[in-house]
């Protein structure tokens, strides 16, 4: 090669790279897939990839794969959402790849939709399937009238408690109302034990509390969001817990199902956990707990709902999927067909069933560990039916949870009460929503 040419080539190469760089200088836009025509079902056989952190999900998929021969679903395990799973899904989809179906927690769905990572399922006629689902499940996958994911399990809150100690030793009962909770917690703490122990940095608890009390923190209105964290229901919850924290009636050193919690629960020093229905499997690993534990409804307010939502996931169809129709066919089976539900309970140990009228065969009988209590039908079913159906998740729940968690950490020390923190958080969240380009206002 002659020097002139190579020099020019070098310049041209550099120039081309430079131009490419400048062209890419606008931040990448989320996929416009929801403005494009829908993709019709394929003619031949279809392979679907499904990324999730549910264990042994392939076994569930195999039940479906063997039931028909058109759609083949392959599950791939990824780390839990906030442990790197979400970043993995989002970067893969942004790069034009990724799976057809991805596990996304219910509260994360709007955030994924905002990133342009999800297919608007309503465009594939999924609203017709809405009645197949538990209303408490499907409403959590919706923003306005649009369905963005297929609920795969939920976590209606209940009280899991050590009956042997609470009732037989201390002569108390599982609190039915929050007033009773206050009194019971006081007596338990005088006895040198803790009724519950919370990790104050975990923002999911206060959210479940206000949800039950009837607050709707994030209301879609027209083209924008109304953020309302200071309404009566929220303030009632804030003032109540400020009092609990000030009088140190509950433990705040560690959360439920952590190593120290298990140790304390085994010794009968922590007596309960007020958390999602999926807690049953975790409570069963309390050493020596068999026959001692029981399940009761979540304590209630005079007005408000029976229970709140704590955890739960959806299976969402990614915006890069070439087969949304087939993905929906599979997911409808998995999340509403009794065979799918039973397979998910058996292999993947999911939380509460998302289906309308089916809780799973294994959950319709008394449970040995919970001393023969038929807790699923007796307790969890009413909790699942008594959900706040007005609640909508906002497209920034990771940050909301972090803000609320940080706020509760300072509330526990008494620095800033929850009541003030909610007001400050409301202002901050509206600002963040505007920063990410949304139309948002504080409620008046």
């Amino acid at each position, binding site marked *: 090669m002659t020097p002139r040419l190579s020099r020019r080539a070098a310049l041209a190469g550099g120039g081309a790279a430079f131009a490419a760089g400048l062209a*890419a200088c606008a931040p990448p836009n989320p996929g416009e897939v929801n403005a494009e025509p829908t993709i019709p079902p394929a003619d031949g056989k279809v392979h679907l990839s499904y990324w999730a952190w549910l*264990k042994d999900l392939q076994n569930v998929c195999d039940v479906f794969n063997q039931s028909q021969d058109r759609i083949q679903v392959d599950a791939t395990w990824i780390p839990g959402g906030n442990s790197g799973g979400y*970043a993995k899904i989002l*970067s893969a989809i*942004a790069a*034009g790849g990724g799976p057809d179906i991805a596990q996304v927690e219910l509260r994360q769905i709007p955030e994924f939709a905002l990133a342009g990572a999800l297919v608007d399922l309503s465009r594939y006629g999924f609203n017709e399937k809405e009645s197949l689902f538990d209303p408490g499940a499907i409403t959590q996958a919706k923003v306005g009238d649009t369905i963005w994911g297929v609920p795969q399990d939920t976590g209606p809150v209940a009280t899991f408690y050590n009956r042997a100690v609470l009732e037989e030793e201390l002569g108390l009962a599982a609190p039915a109302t929050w007033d009773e909770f206050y009194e019971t917690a006081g007596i338990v703490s005088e006895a040198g034990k803790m009724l519950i122990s919370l990790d104050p940095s975990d923002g999911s608890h206060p959210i479940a509390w206000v949800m039950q009390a009837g607050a709707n923190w994030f209301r879609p209105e027209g083209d924008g969001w109304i953020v309302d964290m200071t309404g009566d229901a929220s303030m009632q919850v804030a003032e109540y817990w400020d009092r609990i924290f000030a009088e140190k009636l509950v433990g705040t050193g560690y959360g439920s199902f952590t190593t120290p919690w298990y140790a304390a629960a085994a010794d009968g020093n922590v007596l309960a956990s007020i958390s999602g229905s999926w807690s049953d499997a975790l409570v069963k690993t309390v050493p020596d707990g068999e026959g001692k534990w029981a399940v009761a409804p979540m304590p209630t307010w005079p007005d408000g709902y029976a229970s709140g939502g704590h955890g739960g996931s959806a299976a969402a169809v990614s915006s890069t999927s070439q087969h949304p129709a087939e993905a929906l066919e599979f997911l409808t089976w998995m999340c509403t067909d009794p065979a799918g539900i039973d397979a998910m309970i058996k292999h993947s140990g999911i939380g509460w069933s998302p289906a309308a009228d089916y809780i799973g065969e294994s959950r319709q009988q008394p449970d040995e560990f919970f001393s023969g209590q038929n807790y699923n039908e007796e307790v969890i079913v009413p909790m699942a039916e008594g959900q706040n159906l007005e609640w909508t998740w906002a497209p920034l729940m990771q940050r909301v949870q972090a803000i609320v968690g940080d706020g509760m950490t300072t509330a526990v020390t008494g620095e800033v009460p929850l009541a003030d923190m909610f007001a400050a958080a409301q202002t901050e969240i509206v600002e963040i929503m505007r920063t990410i380009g949304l139309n948002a206002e504080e409620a008046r």
Partner: protein
Amino acid sequence: MSTAEIDTTTTGRRKPLGNAAKAARGDGRAGARDAGRKPTTTIIVTALLAIVALYFLVPVYWVVINATKSTEDLFGTSGFWFGENFQLLENMRAVLDANGGIFPRWGLNSLLYAGVGSVLATYFATAAGYALAKYRFRGRNFVYALVLGGVLVPGTAVALPLFFLFSSMGITNTYWSVLIPSLVSPFGLFLASIYASAAVPEEMLEAGRIDGVGELGLFHRLALPQLTPALVTILLFQFVAIWNNYMLPLVMLADEKLYPITLGLDNWRAQTDRLPEFYQLTIGGALLSVIPLAILILVLQRFWRGGLTEGSVKG
């Protein structure tokens, strides 16, 4: 450092120059310094160094011991000694077979990224460093300043925009997305240019030119052999840098089949929360990936030393 100490420095530095004649007839440096050491000092210093060595070896020792255990023994027996079952071979086989033999593939990927990346990066950096050291041309200082900036900017700060750039070019989640950024070593360029200005004599190049050797030939045939110590250092430095990289492949790769060993092991470790059997896979995988590197490091550290001296003395 206080002024007083700096003053003694100056005197300390000046005196020996005056004494150089005296020193010149003295024996070698090591001999001179060995003389007069008390045996007690030797024992104390050796003991001290041995304790420090324990600190550096504990994690490696732990992984060797625990790679031989069953999952029950892992939790049930002391981490500092063997468990009841010795199943090193079974564990190793499980590591190599898991997921359809994905672990050997991760190893090969790492070798590909680090091997190809470091060889090409060394060649490119050396050619550029030599050009900057041996030619006077317009824009030379500008290039120098630009690359100096590149040395100081943390690589991770570049990883995110690079992802968006590659994403717009459609090459994320490919071998290229990790390989291409690995081909650049600004640090290597500096080392090469410092070394070249000292180790490649002008006269040699002039003699070559008179003999009719082309400019590229001068570099390849005359300069490169002189630069061997710098080449080894850059190669090793870049190899380790690519081998250790985590953020770049994490950002770029979604397909497990393209993972380097670091990302793959991280993926296994993340599964231990739910599936305890992954503890054994992670420990076994860590052992397998540490051993070849340890051997490589032990063998190559002598080469390393020579090269870095040049870099640090003159840099």
